[in-house]
């Protein structure tokens, strides 16, 4: 499903965020990425979603070398994965429902079908009653759940999440983690950068640890 082959990422300015990282993720696996702040966890996720390109080695998703994708092909890669961003990237001038509708509008779903899917996704994360709420009116946990709903509304088979339980109280964090466990249970490949391994323990996930951009054995 995902293959890192001696992948290296050096940011302009000289900082090497990832160096010589190699691993494989099989379909349906749940993988946690740990490591200190600045270890390169977010960079690793960004390489998978082609938000950044590797400066060395290769990153393959479903057999596709995403580092070498043409600019015009990147949108179609992204439509097939769900990403929960570290800073969520919700649109604050649109309500919860409209935020979840965005990926469907981008993919060109007919409005009625899209609305049905969006409500199903909101229901999945327990936000169906809040569909008219603007993001500012939502609590931290609700915002996180909204960003998960937006990530899964396209029904991707690969779900990436960047510290989805950070800054949440333990009960809320457990609820959020439970959503990812559910997706894992139905066969979605789940790839999470996190410090809170304990919440995901029921899935017995594989663990990758980064240290200053290097993968620890």
């Amino acid at each position: 499903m995902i293959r890192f082959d001696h992948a290296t990422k050096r940011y302009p300015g000289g900082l090497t965020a990832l160096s010589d990282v190699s691993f494989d993720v099989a379909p349906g696996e749940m993988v946690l990425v740990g490591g200190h702040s600045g270890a390169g966890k977010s960079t690793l996720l960004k390489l998978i979603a082609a938000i950044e390109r590797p400066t060395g080695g290769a990153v393959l998703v479903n057999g596709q070398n995403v580092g070498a994708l043409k600019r015009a092909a990147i949108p179609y890669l992204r439509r097939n994965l769900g990403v929960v961003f570290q800073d969520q990237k919700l649109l604050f001038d649109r309500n919860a429902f409209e935020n979840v509708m965005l990926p469907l509008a981008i993919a060109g779903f007919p409005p009625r079908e899209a609305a049905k899917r969006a409500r199903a996704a909101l229901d999945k994360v327990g936000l169906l009653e809040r569909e008219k709420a603007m993001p500012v009116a939502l609590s931290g946990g609700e915002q996180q759940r909204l960003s998960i709903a937006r990530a899964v509304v396209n029904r991707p088979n690969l779900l990436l999440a960047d510290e989805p339980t950070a800054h949440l109280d333990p009960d809320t964090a457990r609820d959020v983690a439970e959503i990812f466990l559910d997706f894992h249970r139905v066969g979605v490949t789940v790839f999470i950068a996190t410090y809170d391994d304990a919440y995901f323990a029921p899935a017995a996930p594989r663990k990758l640890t980064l240290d200053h951009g290097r993968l620890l054995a």
Partner: protein
Amino acid sequence: MNIWFSHQSAAFSLALRRLLVAPVNTLLSLLAMGIALALPAGGQMLFANAQQLANRSAPAARISLYLAVDADRKAATDLESKFKNNPAIKSWQFMAREETLARMKKSEGLGDVIDALPKNPFPDAYTLVPRDEGPDATEKLAAELRKLPKVDHVQLDSAWVRRLDALLRLGRTSLLLLATLLGVGLIAITFNTIRLQVLTQRAEIEVSRLLGATDAFIRRPFYWFGALQGLGGGLVAWCIVRLATLGLAGPIGELGQLYSLGFTLEPLSAVGSGVLLLAAVGLGWAGAALSLRQYLKDI
């Protein structure tokens, strides 16, 4: 086709929403565009009217020739033999000074004045029809006639029409220049509003890209925005021209009556209105395209 349509209609309603979310800004842009468009559109409308007037009142070229007041009938018959030998003259009509006097006496108010004059103030006169009615040939013939003895004054009756025609041609060129300048101004207005739009929608553009939006998807609402704003500006311009027409119709009608031209101000034609609106939409679209090329690439 279905996806295309739903994409377009989504972009259209998004653009409309963005226009309505800042009504004051939108209104100001529409006014600026409307005024910029109203100038050439109104000018075009006036010129079309003037052109029509010029065409309608253009008489067949006639030359009026007045003899000196002291010329006798002999001078007149001498002239007629010259007319007969001039191939450039098709026909002529003599107007004796007595006839003119009698006609003038009959007209309202002039009778008393003429009675008070010691002698007939009118000269003998001819109206000539040239064989070639083109402006150059008529002018040449008039010059020849002026050199004849006892001829006091030769007048080309269509001279004012031709002067008006030349003036209109000059006006049309200036109008084209003005329209070009204002068209560029219009593109600049859209260019700037789209630039501001791109800045305001930065977060939305960035998030959409991350969620798999193509460039076309991101650009679409901005094109609609530019085109809709253009259309709005065009409608404002149309209203301005229409109001101006209504305002001017009265005074111009009176003027026409005074000069017995039977002339009324025609409003902007359907074709003219269509061209105005299409041009407005096109210019808005072009401004958006230029702006997007400039500002979208670095998001």
